[in-house]
């Protein structure tokens, strides 16, 4: 434990800011460096910042996408805070955080603990299989799962085969089970990603630490919690940030499988934004929601970054 802490401290020192004097001296050179950055930065402004700015501008209007917009100031934002549909979508996102973030990270860590320390035969094959969902197109994943979980799909056939016939249902069409099912598909998709991130991170853990832990009498489980998990702390933060973003941002999977139904049981922020912008043509309203979602995601990402700073 102390060795890990020590190592992190050392790295932090390397990353200390330059003393002010040196920085001032270097400033003149910086301008030529900016010239190199300019083309990609211009591109960034055109394809990212400008649309975001325009989106923020639209969010101040009552606009149907066709006729001239009517200025409403912050009304769209005020309404978003009172909109029960928005609240419901956010609650669904919180449920999905459990399935998309916490469970995959736990699974990824356990798999890493096993694979990294006790190389199995054909580890490459297992790794590929577990990572496969991440490589597949989300639409393919969605269509496949919708079929697997349908009334006569393989999952229900399996339930019937083992005598659990009365548990069969159309999982994505059940008012109670649709959201957890949607979450479970996300767990399946994201566990492989977490595992690959953690495996890469585990390679930079000094094996001496494991030796030290063994000498201190640590078993497999002790080793996992005192060496592997702390050693992966920064990678865990990366995984948290990525999977959190998916929980808040996940559109394709939900759209392909349920389109927010049954009723509004799987409606999340991104599907709500899409249907308001492109189906109902409440473009100002949808833009305000999108901006709020963006701010929320940046806040979460910033929080995680600070968390990893402190590590």
């Amino acid at each position, binding site marked *: 434990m102390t060795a890990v802490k020590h190592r992190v401290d050392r*790295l*932090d020192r390397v*990353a*200390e*800011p*330059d003393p002010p004097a040196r*920085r001032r001296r270097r400033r003149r050179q910086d301008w030529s460096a900016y010239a190199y950055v300019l083309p990609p930065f211009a591109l960034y*402004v055109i394809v990212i*910042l*400008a649309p*975001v*700015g*325009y989106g*923020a*501008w639209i969010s101040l*209007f009552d*606009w*149907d*996408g*066709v*006729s*001239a*917009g*009517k*200025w409403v100031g912050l009304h769209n934002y005020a309404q978003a805070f009172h909109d029960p549909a928005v609240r419901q979508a956010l609650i669904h996102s919180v449920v999905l955080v459990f399935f998309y973030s916490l469970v995959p990270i736990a699974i990824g860590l356990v798999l890493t603990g096993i694979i990294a320390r006790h190389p199995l035969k054909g580890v490459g094959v297992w790794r590929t299989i577990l990572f496969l969902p991440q490589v597949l197109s989300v639409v393919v994943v969605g269509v496949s799962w*919708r079929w697997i*979980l*349908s*009334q006569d799909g393989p999952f229900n056939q399996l339930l019937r085969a083992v005598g659990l016939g009365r548990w069969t*249902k*159309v*999982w*994505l*069409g*059940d*008012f109670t089970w*649709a959201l957890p099912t949607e979450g479970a598909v996300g767990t399946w998709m994201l566990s492989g990603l977490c595992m690959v*991130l953690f495996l*890469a*991170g585990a390679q*930079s853990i000094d094996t001496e630490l494991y030796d030290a832990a063994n000498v201190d009498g640590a078993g497999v489980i002790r080793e996992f919690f005192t060496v592997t998990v702390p050693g992966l702390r*920064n*990678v865990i*933060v*990366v995984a948290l940030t990525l999977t959190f973003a998916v929980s808040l941002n996940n559109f394709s999977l939900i759209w392909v499988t349920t*389109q*927010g*139904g*049954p*009723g509004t049981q799987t409606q999340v922020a991104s599907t709500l934004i899409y*249907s308001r912008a*492109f*189906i*109902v*043509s409440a*473009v*100002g309203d949808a833009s305000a929601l999108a901006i709020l979602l963006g701010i929320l995601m940046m806040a979460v990402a910033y929080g995680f*970054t600070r968390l*990893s*700073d402190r590590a």
Partner: protein
Amino acid sequence: MRMQQREAGPASWRRRRRSAVTIAIAATTALALAACSPGSDGKSSSTTPADGPVSTGINSAKKVSITVTDGWGSTGSGATFGQVVKNFETKYPNVTVNRQTTDYNSYQQTVNLKLNSPNPPDVMMLETSGYGQGFYGAVSANKVQPLDSYAKAYGWADRVGSDASLNVFRMDPSQHYLWGSGTLYGVPEQNAIIGVFYNKSLLKKAGFASPPTTFAQFESTLAGAKAHGVTAIEESSTFIHTEMALWGAFANSADQVNKWVYGASGTFADPANLKAAQTMRDWNAKGYFETGAVGTSDNDAAAAFLGGKAMYYIEGSWMAGGVEGSLKADGGWFAFPSVSASSPVGGGPTTPLVIPAGSKHKDVAAKFLDFFLSQEQTDYLFKNGWGLPGAQITPSLASAGTPTADIVNALSKAEGQGGGGTIPFLDWANPQYSTQLAGELQKLAAGKQTAAAFTKTIQDEWVTFHDKRKAA
């Protein structure tokens, strides 16, 4: 996998962030100045496009090119439409048609951009009529050319049966764009009515030799199917066509329903609709729908019916080709039996083709619409699996005894003398319904809300929309 934070100190962080904010503000301001308010291109949007004098002639000496855009794609019916475009070019060699097509879902996302473009297409498909997706928005924003003069000059009313058939493409600018009367803005791409496709063998298995003709008989076939272990009705998660069939069956007159759909008067929360909604709920409780319908997509439901897994499939007439192809002689069709004597039939002319107000070749575009509606092209479309084209086909084309022939008969009966008339699709009555209806119907069918709660939700949304429309 270490994050690259902390390479510079807090002071420089703050400075960098400040400059980013400055740039963002500058970019936003620049855009704001350039764009003013979204949607106002400073041109034509505030003035109603003028209708007519029009010319039906074409100057064959002058080369001209027009753009036609649609969401039918390039296969199936998209290819059929592509052939109509080619036929037009063959007939008028001086005209070049630049056809732009994408699949239906992507098309939806580009309609507004196309309408707002300084160079809009000359002929455009819009998704729905009425207040549904697109039509009301485009018309009330003055982006669509009035077609009354063209319709009169070309005689389009005769091609679609009667002038009243075009009412679903009319809106009245003097009444805050009230739908159903006033100025004509589009012509129909297709005719479609809601009815019941049935599997003859399964109906026999349920204990009935011929299809039901009254509502009571219809319900007893459902019970018969249930008793004999046959899935009575194949249903998808949208439930909309069954709701529309019931809505029509319980309604007393097309006129009353149309007034409500058009936004003029009436209420959805009336006893007839309450009964219709209650029937939907009861049918689900009695197990008449395919188990798990709430989680079944349209495509899966259609595939199940075409695969011979259910007795009935309540759907639009566009399924006729599929049913004839898959179920062959086993496939049949009948009009949904009405409860009252003069019940209307759900459906009628759908999917408007319009000429954007900004088109620079309106006369040629109208020529194209006329060509599309001509007897020759209509028959061509029908023979190539288009379904029922917007204009009338040569009646002898539908071979007797097929679902298509029955549909053609039912449609001409509904729209002719003594028929109950047609009523537009329910989801055209309000822009919200396209997303809201499926969810509300799922809650209704699954017993999660009462029939009264359902009709009230639909009616409340109607009031909200029309209050806003009248205030605009």
